[in-house]
């Protein structure tokens, strides 16, 4: 699938009708979502025929992008039932087959690193401090190939250190495939500059 086509399809998705501020609910725009998954597949082969988990899936944009880029199975996980309802409808609208689980990511217990790739646009912790690092920590435990995540540019050094030193990542790469990524991609003066990261977990067995 071409990038423009992917972006256009994601633009059709329904978003939060009543976003909950305490959960930091805001849509992952089609611009950023399409580029994340397009990069993941075309630069690294992390999506096609793979098992992909969308952490904090919200209305399911990243999961839908993964599915459209050829993921064999996609699992969307979110704490909020209203978001999951919208995500289910979105999957139906695009005729995508996505598995959903309602769970607090910090309490997610998975049998092992069976998922290939985790993708996420995590809450940054404006409401509950360090939330994005909690998400990253869990993701690196359950993904066997790669974790793609967005973090504030202002926390760049901290993110790299935590991933490599504390969360078991074997590599932490910044992706500049989209120049000047912004969370909302509008209203640049008020927007938050974000980095797209690709982390690879340490694995005992080969990929």
């Amino acid at each position, binding site marked *: 699938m071409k990038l423009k086509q992917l972006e256009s399809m994601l633009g059709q998705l329904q978003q939060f009708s009543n976003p909950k501020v305490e959960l930091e609910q805001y849509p992952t725009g089609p611009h950023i979502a399409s580029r994340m998954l397009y990069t993941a597949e075309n630069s690294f082969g992390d999506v096609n025929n793979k098992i992909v988990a969308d952490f904090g899936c919200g209305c399911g944009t990243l999961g839908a992008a993964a599915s459209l880029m050829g993921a064999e199975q996609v699992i969307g996980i979110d704490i909020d039932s209203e978001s999951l309802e919208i995500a289910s409808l979105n999957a139906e609208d695009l005729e995508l*087959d996505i*598995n959903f689980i309602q*769970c607090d990511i*910090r*309490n997610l217990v998975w049998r092992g690193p069976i998922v290939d790739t985790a993708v996420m646009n995590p809450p940054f912790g404006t409401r509950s401090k360090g939330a994005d690092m909690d998400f990253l920590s869990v993701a690196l435990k359950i993904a066997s190939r790669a974790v793609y995540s967005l973090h504030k540019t202002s926390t760049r050094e901290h993110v790299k250190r935590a991933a490599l030193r504390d969360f078991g990542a074997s590599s932490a790469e910044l992706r500049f495939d989209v120049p000047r990524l912004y969370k909302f991609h509008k209203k640049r003066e008020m927007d938050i500059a974000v980095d797209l990261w690709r982390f690879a977990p340490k694995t005992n067995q080969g990929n």
Partner: protein
Amino acid sequence: MRLFTHNMLSSNIKGVANGFPLRIEAEQVLEKQVDFNPDFLRNLFPKLEWKALVDGARALGYAELPEAADSSMLESEEFLRKVHHALLELHLEEGALTCPETGRKFPVNKGIPNMLLHEDEGPWFGSRSAQMQPSILEMTFSSFKQETSLQLPGSLVSQMLVRITGKQ
């Protein structure tokens, strides 16, 4: 919820040593066709918990899987199609998943399992939020207030509560 998901999901209640696999109680099961992808199944097979899949399939009304399986069987298309059907085409739409240790039921509605924990089941101070779980505090505080009828500053009350309840 597919057995594919069930095969990876564990009970997340604090203190549970072995929360896998969750027992399935099926109220409504649907079958939805999925394209057969034998390569995907062959790659996935070594990562599966076979017994959990067999028992799960039986709970959803499908008893065709052999009790034991090894990788030599992956050469048989007939076997792969059974795995495909059990793992990907059966959906638990309504029902529950039960923690094997505590018996606690996690509901499944519209195919989505709800693994949210109640206050007393999850890590109270594992998360980074500053708030203590309010319910125990409130209960202890209100009974404390009744006993003593003292007006105490909040911080002193919390310290006293820690000593009384023994919880940090």
